[in-house]
């Protein structure tokens, strides 16, 4: 388990990018303080940008939209909604005393 940041470092309804053993992880916080973590790398644009996407829900799934070309990824599973062949790694996150751990 590695410490990433304080919960308050993430503005509600946005994401941040955290460094975890040389990997870039996008960590998202919803308004109800649910936290999700996915790869930060957007396979479509090949850029490390997913933490900067807009959060929301589509077809009863919580998703993030890539800021480059708007593909959606399920926050829980990492599954891309537009292309079933593409699935990001999702990570389990733990919150303890206002801190976020992976």
């Amino acid at each position, binding site marked *: 388990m590695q*410490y*990433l*940041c304080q919960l308050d*470092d*993430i*503005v*509600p*309804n*946005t994401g*941040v*990018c*955290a*460094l975890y053993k040389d990997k*870039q992880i996008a*960590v998202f916080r*919803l*308004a109800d303080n649910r936290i999700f973590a996915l790869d930060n*790398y957007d396979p479509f*644009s*090949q*850029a*490390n*940008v997913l933490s*900067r*996407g*807009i*959060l*929301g*829900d*589509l077809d009863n799934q*919580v*998703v993030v*939209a890539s*800021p*480059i070309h*708007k593909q*959606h990824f399920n926050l829980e599973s990492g599954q891309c909604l537009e292309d079933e062949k593409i699935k990001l790694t999702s990570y389990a996150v733990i919150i303890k005393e206002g801190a976020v751990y992976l």
Partner: protein
Amino acid sequence: MKKRLIVVGHGMVGHHFVCQAITLGLTEQYQITVLSAEPRPAYDRVQLTRYFDTLNAQDLNLVDTDIYSEKNIQLLLNTPVTAIDREQKQVHTEQDIFDFDILILATGSYPFVPNVPGHQDPRCFVYRTIEDLDAIIAAAKTSQVGVVVGGGLLGLEAAKALTTLGLNTHVVEFAPQLMAVQIDAQGGDLLRKKIEALNVKVHTQKNTQCIEPGIEHPLRMKFGEDQFLEADLIVFSAGIRPQDQLAKTCGLTLGERGGIRINDYCQTSDPTIYAIGECALWQNRIFGLVAPGYQMATIAAQHLSGVENKKFEGADMSTKLKLMGVDVGSIGDAHGRAPDSQHIFYQNPQKGIYKKLVTSVDGKQLLGAVLIGDTTDYSNLLQLYLNNMTLPEEPEGLILPSLSGKNNALGVAALPDTAQICSCYNVNKATLCSAVREGAHSLTDIKNCTSASTGCGGCTQLVKDIMQHELKQLGITVNNHLCSHFSYTRQELYHLIRVEELKTFDQVIAQHGRGLGCDICKPTVASILASCWNDYILKTEHAGLQDSNDYFLGNIQKDGSYSVVPRVPGGEITPDKLIVLGEVAKQFNLYTKITGGQRVDLFGARVEQLPAIWRMLVDAGFETGHAYGKAVRTVKSCVGSTWCRYGVDDSVGLAIEVENRYKGLRSPHKIKMAVSGCTRECAEAQSKDVGVIATEHGWNLYVCGNGGMRPRHADLLASDLDKETLIRYVDRFLMFYIRTADRLQRTSVWLEKLEGGLDYLRKVIIDDSLGLAAQLETEMANIIGTYQCEWKTTIEDPIRLKRFTHFVNSKRSDDNIVFVQERQQIRPATQTEKAQLSSLEV
């Protein structure tokens, strides 16, 4: 060998005949030749007056000449036919002789000019062709007073044109009232009052006896002993006469008062010769409207092809039009001439409305109607009349304003299938309904597959109503909801937010939506909130709504780096500021480029560098250029009168003022503007959402232009404005757009979808027809008063600055952003280059 078919006259109807001939495959049997007296292919004469707006004849063109050549149809312009030889079956022009097997006469009509002595003066004109208009425009340049002879439909249209040209305008009418053919005396009185209120002087019961040289103006029209009127130019619009000279000299049967006699298939007394359009006389009637002419063209073509034996059955002459902004409608027996007919009136002098119904004795059938000042009931009444439908118990309900709020109009459901909905293209209700059933679910689809509503446009509302009704019948819900979280359009959401003074997305979705929101509704609501309340967009409650571009106040690039675009109002920049741009770019190793918007873009900034870059820029007096936002972008300028030898006004000064006024304004899509110093238009203002061009008398205001993927020329909204009025109109225009447009809809598309189009927009912006102007101006003043440079606010706020790091838990940079050198500057490395570089490092 193919048979030869010759069409004489390439007006609206001649052209329509050719189109029908193509559709019906007549080009397989006939070699078609069209001989035209005019110098250009057929154009939209009905819209002739629009020529004054653009002075571009091409805008009125109806003909796709490629299709003509594809079908091997010969179109000879400037080639009047001088004679017809029926024995030899030949037509003669000045140069040539053409053989024919079938001849179509579509020679139209000519303006009637009463034989008053002096009418040949070169300052006397008619109003029928583009050349006529050019001549009037040229003469108007040196004129102050213009007179139109004739107070009918066309006369009033000509009068409007003269006022647009800036002339002091008079209308002289022989009858005791205006539009005596279409409306009754009481309606005529009201129309006159309305037209006089527009500064046109109306003289009825005046018979011009002669035209002589005047004293104050070159022409003097004498009406009686010492009654006269002086003018600089005169336009005759005293009716039309069928162009039947050719037919007459070759011995075809004419009517007693002219017109080429035709049977129900549009054949003349010689069965190989057809006559269609305004030159043709059917059952002793001439039809001076385009729709019946189109019907004749179709019937003649069908008759020739033998596919169908439809007969011409006459046409309804009801009209609805807008004369100088005054709505006028006339249906059937407007004068109530039928014996024992009953008349029902409604009059509201204060609002300038007059309506009359003419019904049968028993009050069950509608025989005619007159509507002045308000024609909303027109299509409803027209359908009742055309389909001979039984009127409701209390027919007055049809024209009384509905005080109870209940709608008196008969629903489209009540219309019979045979009801003709579009008279221009003869489309009935059944055709529309089956088009909907076959999948046409939008007005555009319907237009494409039935042609309905592509002519005069008068039937558009009815076509839409029928479409909607049919869709409902089919159980199809057409929704233009924003997304799955909101069952509202952007416009409806805007109103809810404004009226209920909602200030955050959470409030909006809690009260009017469901779920968490998405990348469609969040930025849309963020944009509406900004347009309404102009809050700082990075406030915690707004932050998560913004597109990444807005969230980091820069445009994200393909590799995740950002661009930096400082505002350069009007494109004017001092050497010192240019040097600062250079220094910043050098210090942070940014790629620099001059943009198409007259400023400089700096690319390749990493997210963590943005605050330091902007610190330097803000200190040097730069502000954000909002290149990342759906907001006002740039106001381009040309050199203007300060330096340019052609400039008539200071375009740079105005551009800077305009840009500073509207900078930061958020909107449904980006807004671009430009100001040119003269008609040479070096700033390309006519391709902008708002374009301004200096004239000798002030500024012309153009709106709704677009470059980009679907270029659109801007429309002239108003001319010769002083600066104050100009700014006022722009305030209103922008706010009205923000209020009503869809998300991501540029002004160009918005205008094309706006019901009533440019005329409606003019009414709202200039005449304040919705009574909104003051409110729109206040809303704009509020935005202007609360402007802040988002970057300045941001660099002064440590909390906001926190987000400008790539990692929340490390100071490192994103190692996936890699640049290589090209032409002495950086550019993003390609994937292959990245692979090579990293293998080198190992």
